[in-house]
């Protein structure tokens, strides 16, 4: 089938305004949007710039706004979108070029939540024990690939760029509810801060946007509850 691909293009330092480019590509209904971008880049216009690597939704490189929703280009198929497909960069991060946005601030927020296990004392010679039930409590939030789809779909983040954002909270949740972690108090204090979880207005955009199917809003809710109760 013939697809019309409209892509919002821009180069920082060169263009004053973003502009739309339109490409016609031949595609199968089962092609990924990433395949279409490659068809353009490899056979029509090699200047089109986007990030990608794994091609199957696990590396987090190619989150973008596709027909008005944040998705991974490699994980959405033509048949779900129809013959006219509009692609823009994620909202709320500055655009460097075409579909490539500046991710540094996003990673800085990730780093700010101390995203690593904090456990004092010598570990045992073998593994620490953790029951399947304890493991299940934070399973969902271990899946995050840091693509940015949730954070850049969040109106609270758009209106307040200092908000730590759903992705960072997801990654804090992952440790907060891990039975092996001993820094709950510190973590809760960090997240209870002015730009922490209370900026969340429970809009659910993040949950809808997550390409890994993480129930982001629910995870944020669990953190809020833990703060109110003063424990996890």
């Amino acid at each position: 089938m013939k697809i019309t691909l409209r892509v919002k293009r821009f180069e920082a330092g060169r263009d004053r305004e973003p502009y739309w480019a339109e490409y016609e590509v031949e595609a199968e209904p089962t092609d990924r949007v990433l395949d279409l971008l490659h068809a353009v880049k490899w056979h029509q216009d090699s200047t089109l710039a986007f990030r990608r690597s794994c091609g199957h939704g696990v590396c987090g490189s190619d989150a973008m706004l596709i027909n008005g929703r944040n998705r991974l280009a490699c994980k959405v198929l033509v048949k779900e979108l129809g013959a006219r497909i509009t692609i823009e960069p994620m909202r709320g991060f500055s655009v460097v070029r075409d579909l490539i946005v500046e991710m540094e601030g996003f990673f800085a927020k990730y780093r700010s939540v101390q995203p690593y296990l904090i456990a004092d004392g010598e570990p045992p010679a073998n593994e620490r024990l953790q029951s399947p039930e304890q493991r299940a409590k934070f399973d969902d939030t271990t899946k995050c690939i840091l693509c940015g789809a949730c954070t850049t779909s969040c109106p609270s983040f758009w209106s307040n760029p200092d908000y730590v954002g759903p992705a960072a909270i997801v990654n804090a949740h992952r440790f907060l509810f891990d039975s092996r972690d001993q820094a709950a108090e510190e973590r809760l204090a960090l997240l209870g801060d002015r730009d922490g979880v209370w900026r969340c207005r429970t809009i659910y955009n993040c949950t809808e946007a997550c390409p890994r199917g993480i129930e982001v809003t629910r995870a944020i809710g669990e953190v809020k509850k833990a703060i109110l109760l003063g424990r996890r």
Partner: protein
Amino acid sequence: MAESPIYHKHEAVIVGAGGAGLMAAGNLVGRDVAVLSKLYPIRSHTGAAQGGIGAALGNHEEDHWEWHMFDTVKGGDYLVDQDAAEILTREAVETVYELEHWGLPFSRTPEGKIAQRRFGGHTRGEGKGPVRRSCYAADRTGHMILQTLYQQSIKHGMRFFDEYLVVDLLMEGGRTAGVVALSIADGQLHVFHAKAVLFATGGYGRVYQTTSNAHALTGDGMAVVLRAGVPLEDMEFFQFHPTGIYKMGILITEGARGEGGKLLNGRGERFMEKYAPTMLDLAPRDIISRCIAQELREGRGVDGKRYVHLDLRHLGRDVIESKLPDITDFVRTYLGIDPIEELIPVQPTAHYAMGGIPTDVLGRVVVDEKNTVLPGLYAAGECACVSVHGANRLGTNSLVDILVFGRRSGRDMARYVAESEFPALPPQPAEQAEARIARLREGSGGGGREESAAVVREELQQELMEKASVFRTANNLVQALDRVRELQQRYQQVRVQDRSRVFNTDLVEALELGFLLDTAEVTVAGALARQESRGAHFREDFPQRDDQNWLKHTLAYRTAGGGVELKYKPVTITRFQPKERKY
């Protein structure tokens, strides 16, 4: 329009931030280290690994590292260096515990221990039957490993240069002196002056048309060192994984068969019963891929097409959704099929490079038949060849390899940089990189035909797929070698259309294509020379293994004229004498 490069000076430079690079960096904490990666570390392909990491923990049943070692050696068709395999399998155990201590969320047994599953070629009692050795976190083990290592790097405040593409290795007076890198964000060249450099740049599956590998896996590190005069070892051994999603190549982990999945041909027969009566669908990958190819050749594909079926239906919803959630998601997303109720169409997909940059067991790069060390140069992970995988890697052994030898490299680098002074930098260190980039940007200028990198790459991938994959013959390999050389010529005419300096991914892809072409050349040249069949290298014109003449490692050098020179070095055999390989 050359402008001067920006200079940096660090004791140690690590190129690549997948499992191997991050593990090495973690063992250099306290030293002055820079980690350069063309992708954000968290985007590295280690994150795509699914099924698990092998270690004889014995959490479900009796197991011993010696059994793991035996399986590794036999799986590799006896081309494995056994001193290295011993280290791999012994240190696997402590490595898995270390990951757990750093917080890796393994799946758990009912008693709370690390859960383990069966995997291809992993046996109890040296071949008596499958054993549960693969430690896993659902089917996201690589994701969890990459996350955990990256988390540790944040904890330790490591210094990263993200989206820097390394294009050249610098040497001076026979020592490693640093690297040259292109900052992708702004097109600036950087010179990193260092005492020691580690390459941990991963594989080159993108040399084939159908692959489980990420777009970024283009053999950069291998090609960069090859151009600097270092040989590549055993490059003719490239593994095809039996279960890639039909046409797309996306991987369905062997863990699916570890949990009980079966392969069926177009007649619904469980064809592995014929070929591997003991291990069945858990025979090693080289064997199963060949069996699938054979079934297809003999007309037993599904509906006359080039695929067979993977059947998971009998495992039931609970097992499928809890132990194999990601592949279930892939199958639903990309094929519109529900593996709980339907069969999955699969075909072999180019997966893993057994060969690579030759190293010793400390990760030091060795450059000849006598294993002479090149001071200051290290390699680890898929781009390296220790060699622990020989002619065919067992599933779960790459994750062990990247961590065990990543750690050993990091430790030895720490020792080396503490003991040595900075070498001098060569004069005009960025000159070659500048010239190469200028040529790609400005074109050949010779009035010749202009080539597109994308077209040359597509032709290369198709050629290797057709002529140098599961089945090989002298005839095909001769043609493939000619073709690769013709493409190398045409590459000289490639001109990048993108004029920008900001995220010029057109230029990045053209540079990557140059790396791919060089790795392709040594792969095919090595395959043509090796007149036997061993592991993943199967020659229809020489279908037997020939220990008399070929129980040796290939070393492929680039000659001044641009060709390939092949030398050979012996295999280290300690415990297990070569035997016939049956499963």
